């Protein structure tokens, strides 16, 4: 083997959205990146390696693009990587069931002078649809090695690696580094008479031509690609070439009577159609596919939105119905664990820390793991089946009324899981204004971390309708996000939404392995968070609720005993001891650091009906929303002795006279609207900068407080209608 063969290769995995790049990337590298049956799953480039026969193949999975003219941020990521980082080879992942459209990008790659190998992905689906591709003939016509692959099954991988080896070797031997590939498309005599002179003047600046392939740039200039003109600024004769290009564009448009970009696109499609006619045959008459049959109902113009709402309702209903049982078992388990530790560890600070801090705080969050598993399983199922794209279409018209559009739906639905990937998924939006609005409203879609808070409060105060109450809060979140989008679009982010064009992928049966992997990925993150961030927070909250130690003065104990006996005749010593124990615990808690902080901030939260305990929990929840649950777990247990009669956290909350159903409802709304956790805030900052982060923080905080105060005051005025639910 030659040295070239043994040197590591940097290979870009590129192609149209939803062509199966990530599946192929996972099959090539053994990674487990998220694969979804909708366009725009990958919004950043990902890297991974494969070693075979002593060579390292370093693969870079880039976001899906339709052409090298980029609009949205994910498309810019893909284009810039290919143009600026110059991989050794591009594997163009082609959807075999949609070959003609996919080859459009392939031809553009070919013009870059970088070796290209075509992976005819989803070849099993093409065969099932009766599409027969003559791989050898197609390779010959286009001058690009083609290999059949099925990313989800890992087939064709070794053949693909062999083709990569061969293509790199051929390129080195045939073209050298900067020459034009022999097979690159010819655009016809008229257009070529304009491309070739431009190509020649661009190539005259050798260092520039080494960075940007002359032919590719010449064609892009004629396509009026803004980015190509920007890149041209580095050429020593930029002004002259710009003038020449503009003159050529005018000539083409006059000659053909249409836009130059359209003329060039038509030439490419003409070439592709010719290649496809010779190499692709439809051996089976296409019938109405299952996808079309389902879509006739699911995408019906009158039913689509209703079906979408029903699907979401079903997801949440199923989550709560199925999750309630294992959640109960886990609560019992943590209760038993607390009791066991109580009986093993001698009385003291350590026992209090373990039982009330760690088990009380972390256990209360852990018990929600089953709900998280079920919710993510169902959301992953919708993604993998291909329903997400339908959801985008179904809601597009409706969302337009609020200044959003269908493409905002992917990130918003992802927001039900975690705001961080959801905010990043907004990169697929082409207009920056749409992107900012979408990112700002994503936190109103209740993430998985808010779910435990809702379930705890709904279970404690609305036991008969707990599931419906949680769904109501989710729905209120969605409505708030729409209203907020409308307000933002009418004020700080004025402008019309951009048109939304997106293909609908076919329905696909999800693989069990893929589904389970997604669920594990999300669940393990939740468990890891509970075992790290939540654990640390729980320990700190225990410390601030326990220290400084406070002893009730003897005189006060005596007066409490006297007044208790006066109120309760014939009371026994045990009851008096229990009463005093509770009084001591309450006093100790009030004099602790948490009590002092809570009393200090209580006036701010008073209009929302929150006492100092709820105020403390709300403030700790800024780190992560689950911490609210663990704070309650500690606040309502600290100072009380664990025993067999220990009530559940739900019972403890209900026993607090300050905590009414109205307060619980207001707290749920407040948690829904206030700024998200640190991780999500940090992602907003990374995506939009400090200015928008500051705006989002103040906007959400103000909205949360105003909404909470308004609902509480109206609730009080109307006589606690919520309590009747």
């Amino acid at each position: 083997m030659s040295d070239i063969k043994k040197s590591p290769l940097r290979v870009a995995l590129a192609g149209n959205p939803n062509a199966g790049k990530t599946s192929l990337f996972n099959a090539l590298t053994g990674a487990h990146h998220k694969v979804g049956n909708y366009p725009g799953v990958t919004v950043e480039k990902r890297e991974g390696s494969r070693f075979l026969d002593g060579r390292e193949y370093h693969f870079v999975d880039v976001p899906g693009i339709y052409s090298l003219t980029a609009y949205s941020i994910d498309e810019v990521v893909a284009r810039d990587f290919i143009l600026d980082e110059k991989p050794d080879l591009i594997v163009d992942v082609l959807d075999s069931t949609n070959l003609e459209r996919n080859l459009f990008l392939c031809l553009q790659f070919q013009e870059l002078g970088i070796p290209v190998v075509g992976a005819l992905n989803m070849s099993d689906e093409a065969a099932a649809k009766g599409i027969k591709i003559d791989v050898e003939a197609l390779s010959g016509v286009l001058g690009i090695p083609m290999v059949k692959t099925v990313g989800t099954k890992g087939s064709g991988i070794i053949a693909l690696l062999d083709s990569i080896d061969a293509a790199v070797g051929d390129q080195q031997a045939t073209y050298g580094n900067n020459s034009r590939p022999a097979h690159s498309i010819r655009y016809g005599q008229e257009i070529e008479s304009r491309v070739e002179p431009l190509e020649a003047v661009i190539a005259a600046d050798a260092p520039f031509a080494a960075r940007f392939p002359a032919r590719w740039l010449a064609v892009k200039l004629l396509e009026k690609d803004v980015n190509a003109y920007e890149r041209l600024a580095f050429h020593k004769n930029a002004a002259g070439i710009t003038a020449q290009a503009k003159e050529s564009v005018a000539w083409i448009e006059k000659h053909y009577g249409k836009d130059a970009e359209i003329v060039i696109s038509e030439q490419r499609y003409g070439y592709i159609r010719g290649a496809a006619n010779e190499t692709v045959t439809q051996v089976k008459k296409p019938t109405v596919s299952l996808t079309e049959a389902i879509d006739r109902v699911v995408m019906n113009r009158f039913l689509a939105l209703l079906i979408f709402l029903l699907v979401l309702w079903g997801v949440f209903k199923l989550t709560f119905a199925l999750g309630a049982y294992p959640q109960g078992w886990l609560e019992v388990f943590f209760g038993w664990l607390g009791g066991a530790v109580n009986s093993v560890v001698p009385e003291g600070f350590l026992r209090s820390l373990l039982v009330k801090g760690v088990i009380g705080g972390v256990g209360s969050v852990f018990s929600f793991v089953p709900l998280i598993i079920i919710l993510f399983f169902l959301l992953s199922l919708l993604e993998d089946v291909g329903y997400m794209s339908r959801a985008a279409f179904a809601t597009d018209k409706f969302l337009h009324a609020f200044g959003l559009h269908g493409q905002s739906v992917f990130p918003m639905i992802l927001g039900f899981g975690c705001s961080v990937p959801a905010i990043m998924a907004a990169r697929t939006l082409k207009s920056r204004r749409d992107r900012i609005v979408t990112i700002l409203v994503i936190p109103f879609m209740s993430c998985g971390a808010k779910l435990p808070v809702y379930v705890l409060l709904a279970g404690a105060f609305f036991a008969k309708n707990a599931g419906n109450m949680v769904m109501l809060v989710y729905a209120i979140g969605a409505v708030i996000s729409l209203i907020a989008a409308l307000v933002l679009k009418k004020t700080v982010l004025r402008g019309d939404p951009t048109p939304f064009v997106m293909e609908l992928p076919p329905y696909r049966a999800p693989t069990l392995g893929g589904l389970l992997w997604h669920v594990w990925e999300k669940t393990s993150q939740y468990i890891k968070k509970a075992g790290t961030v939540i654990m640390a927070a729980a320990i700190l909250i225990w410390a601030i609720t326990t220290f400084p130690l406070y002893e009730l003065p003897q005189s006060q104990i005596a007066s409490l005993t006297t007044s208790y006996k006066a109120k309760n005749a014939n009371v026994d010593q045990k009851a008096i001891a229990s009463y005093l124990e509770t009084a001591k615990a309450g006093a100790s808690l009030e004099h602790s650091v948490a009590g002092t902080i809570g009393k200090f901030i209580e006036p701010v939260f008073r209009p929302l009906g929150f006492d100092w305990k709820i105020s403390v929990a709300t403030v700790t929840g800024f780190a992560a929303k689950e911490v609210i649950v663990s704070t309650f777990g500690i606040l309502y247990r600290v100072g009380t002795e664990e025993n067999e009669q220990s009530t559940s956290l739900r019972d403890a909350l209900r026993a607090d006279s300050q905590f009414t159903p109205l307060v619980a409802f207001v707290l749920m709304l407040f948690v829904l609207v206030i700024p998200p956790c640190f991780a999500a805030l940090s992602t907003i900052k990374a995506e939009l900068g400090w200015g928008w982060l500051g705006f989002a923080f103040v906007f959400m905080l103000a909205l949360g407080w105003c909404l909470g105060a308004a609902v509480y005051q109206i609730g009080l005025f109307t006589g606690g209608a919520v309590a009747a639910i």
Partner: protein
Amino acid sequence: MNAGQAAAAEAFIVAVIVAAALLFTVFRILRAARGRKPSCCSGGSGRRKQKGGRDCCE
């Protein structure tokens, strides 16, 4: 070990645990403020080494 020593040892252990939790929390907040991508972004296995050997999740 008498009762006083045992109580002191217990207080020491608890103090160490609380201090560790405090340090961990401060570290995580600072890391988030610096804009480093948090671990809850998608793809637990999507970690890759950047230049300088720093881990970055996708």
